[in-house]
């Protein structure tokens, strides 16, 4: 979403609605809400021009807590409803809040088509690898073997990688962050807001009630340090603790490897480039999460995996209409009605 020119002086408080928040104690959604409410005033967009649209789920309760316009729609349909909203009012800043079930299960089709069209909206997908609101069934991101209410013997469905799916659908902005990473989350939100076109933000979120600690080993303390690859445009892909930095290099016959950073010629270390499809696809090919949970062979790419400028759908909608007006003039109903063969009866 682009920022509006005239900056408005607003504070975090201005974005807190009068509804009391109804998430479970300790839910990762609180942290995300706090960061979003912090970032909003920094965008300089008048509050009335911001709309939060959601589906159904714990995460989708989000709009009620934002003192902006909001639409808590039905399960999975937020991207479709937001599309009409944005096409009708391109001047609005539209934020879609969805979950791994809402956005990737029932809403999967609307999600991939929104990403394909590249409407200028922002999609925040709260991925807790579980269905929270319905009390704990597995989701399309749940791990194989995960025991849930609907998988007493363990999940047998292979999970989606949200970022890979988004990229495959043609997303122009693909990013990943974590509920607990305050600053990083803020930065990604700013980047998403700044991107013109559909911004896809996967937020790893903890559900302490039904899937507690799902991401701990890659998001908590040492796990975070060991397993998070902080992507920076133009920077080499290095990660890990200061004393033992690791780097990603492309091994022979295009097999990527994780090596000790100081064991290789720096020139060999891959350098991130948000605008290079080969890099973005490469990052999505890395297994950062075990199919059955836990860390994968590669670190978690965090931040912006892809950020490219492509034609923006709502711009094209406006342009088509404008071009037609300049070609045919503003619509004249009397001309239109009589545009076929006519005859007069007196």
């Amino acid at each position: 979403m682009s920022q509006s020119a005239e900056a408005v002086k607003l504070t975090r408080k201005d974005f807190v609605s009068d509804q009391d928040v109804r998430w479970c104690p300790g839910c990762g959604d609180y942290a995300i809400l706090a960061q979003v409410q912090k970032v909003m005033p920094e965008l300089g967009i008048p509050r009335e021009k911001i709309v939060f649209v959601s589906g159904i789920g714990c995460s989708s309760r989000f709009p009620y807590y934002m003192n902006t316009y909001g639409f808590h729609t039905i399960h999975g349909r937020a991207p479709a409803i937001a599309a009409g909203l944005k096409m009708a009012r391109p001047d609005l800043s539209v934020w879609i809040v969805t979950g791994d079930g809402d956005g990737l299960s029932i809403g999967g089709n609307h999600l991939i088509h929104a990403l394909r069209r590249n409407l200028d909206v922002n999609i925040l997908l709260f991925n807790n690898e579980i269905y929270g609101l319905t009390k704990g069934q597995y989701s399309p991101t749940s791990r194989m073997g995960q025991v849930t209410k609907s998988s007493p013997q363990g999940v047998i469905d292979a999970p989606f990688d949200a970022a890979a799916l988004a990229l495959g659908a043609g997303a122009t902005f693909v990013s990943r962050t974590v509920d607990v990473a305050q600053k990083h989350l803020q930065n990604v939100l700013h980047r998403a807001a700044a991107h013109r076109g559909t911004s896809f933000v996967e937020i790893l979120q903890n559900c302490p009630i039904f899937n507690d600690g799902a991401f701990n080993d890659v998001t908590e303390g040492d796990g975070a340090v060991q397993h998070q690859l902080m992507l920076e445009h133009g920077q080499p892909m290095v990660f890990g603790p200061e004393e033992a930095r690791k780097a990603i290099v492309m091994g022979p016959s295009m097999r990527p490897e994780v090596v000790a950073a100081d064991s290789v010629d720096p020139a060999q270390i891959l350098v991130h480039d948000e605008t290079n499809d080969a890099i973005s696809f490469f990052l999505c090919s890395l297994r950062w999460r075990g199919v059955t949970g836990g860390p994968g062979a590669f670190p978690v790419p965090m931040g912006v995996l892809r950020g490219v400028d492509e034609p923006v759908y709502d711009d094209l909608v406006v342009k088509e209409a404008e071009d037609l007006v300049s070609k045919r003039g503003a619509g004249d109903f009397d001309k239109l009605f009589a545009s076929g063969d006519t005859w007069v009866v007196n």
Partner: protein
Amino acid sequence: MGVASTVSTGSKPVKEVSTVVIRFAGDSGDGMQLTGTQFTNESALAGNDIATFPDFPAEIRAPAGTLAGVSGFQLNFSSERIFTPGDQPDVLVVMNPAALAVNLEDLVDGGSLIVDTDAFTKSNLRKAGYDGDPLEDTSLNQRVRVFPIPVTKLTQQALADLNLPNKTVVRCKNFFALGLCSWLYHRPIDSTLDWIRQKFGKSEALVEANTRAFQTGWNYGETTEIFASSYQVRAAEIEPGTYTNMTGNKALAFGLMAAAAKADTQLFYGSYPITPASDILHELSDHKNFGVTTFQAEDEIAAVGAALGASFAGSVGVTGTSGPGVSLKGETLGLAVMVELPLVCVNIQRGGPSTGLPTKTEQSDLLQALYGRHGECPMAVIAASSPTDCFDAAFEAVRVAVKYMTPVMLLSDGYLANGSKPWNIPNYADLPEIPAKYWTNDVGFHPYLRDEDTLSRPWVVPGTPGLEHRIGGLEKDYDSGNISYLPTNHEKMTRVRAAKISGIADELDAPEIAGADSGDALIVGWGSTYGSIAAATTQLLDEGKKVGHLHLRWLNPLPNGLDEIFARYRHIIVPELNFGQLVRVLRDRYLVDAVPVSQVRGQPFKVQQLAARISTILEGSK
């Protein structure tokens, strides 16, 4: 104009006839739709009342010459008022054996059969499933008057010196047929000759070729012995005005556009292609200079979702589809009922259930429109009754959606969608304004604050400072608009949602009755059966039966006063192209022993059959 003058003095006797039903039939490639359309224009210019119905093959391009590939176009033109394209053609023009096989049984006894004999080759006959040549069949010649004409050869001869490729030449033969029929019925032909010039303008050769084929056909009628006389159909008494021939889908699209403009807002049309609704999307997508946005969504759910999002944004959100699409939109329509935003859902009904008969017409989605969502989910439902009425019905649907902040289901069907009637073109300026006000007043505002008369909630568009609010599908508190799980509040909100819709009845015109306003039977219809019922009623009245015809425009709510009206008739008869859906509603609501007259064949009622079935009921032999 040259041609016209050279041929304008007819040398043969001229007979007067009042009404003629003609059908052009041939292979998809033979240009029958075009021929029919041109003949229709000529007849309109002749001042006749007209009604048309095209009959496309179900397949895109079935192999040439096959039964599946037959395309037809029927026109009813008359010096009297007519209501339908006619039950059976008086004149059948067939360009190949398959067309004969498919259409012959419809031709009236003693009717005229004009045949291109050149197309009756062995292979074509086989494709049409004929062993021998049907034209030699004597029983045929006993039942109808056959005019065997070597259309192709004659066209080839006439165009020989233009040395065009034979393929091109043969393509002109439909203009021979058109010329011939134009002579036969004294049609004014200038419009057609102009049309040829425009259409083929780029190639002088083609203009010449088609013009000549047309003239040749005309002259053939005038000169050869085969036609003893020609026919005159005088101009009908038609309300003065400028007319154009309108199909239902085009009229519907125009109605939506005009209404949105009169409501001083934008039209957003979200749709996913489906027969027979796609033409509305095609039409609207080419008028984006009218403040129209069209969105071809990934599916019907996204289509209605986007339309609802646009309504939230302040546009008139409309979604159009056919039965299968409505079966997918149910959940989102329920959301629209809950959030109370203006939305129109257009259903161009077709043969069901499931994929059913996609290219055929039916009225079997009424109960779905009324009851096809979970929960107590009242839906305003309106139905168009003729191709041109699609304009008015669409306009009205938008007006009510906006005034009452509610979704409205607009029912049409395949018969109206593709059929056409002359449309007395209105002046845009004369169309009523639709007062749609966005709410901006923040004193005591909450999103479900209701208007006392209409019970509608305020339409507040995002971007309005100070009125930021949240809506959604969970039950809301009557007094604050916040989420509420309170038992009594839920009942109150459910009642008010119902009352809002039933309240619309108070502003509806009293139902009009054609024919007897009391007596033997009231024939109650809705939607596309208007023409058939009107014609049948006229006929029954002529037979001295005391019948009236009441055609419902709004199916929900029903207009006030029906109970009194029903009480004035011995029978309440409800013809529908389904197994009796409106009749259920009437029996339930008024406890009146209304009886159905059902037909589920993918076709409109034939007037004769309908009249006969009604008579049977009147004679009490149910």
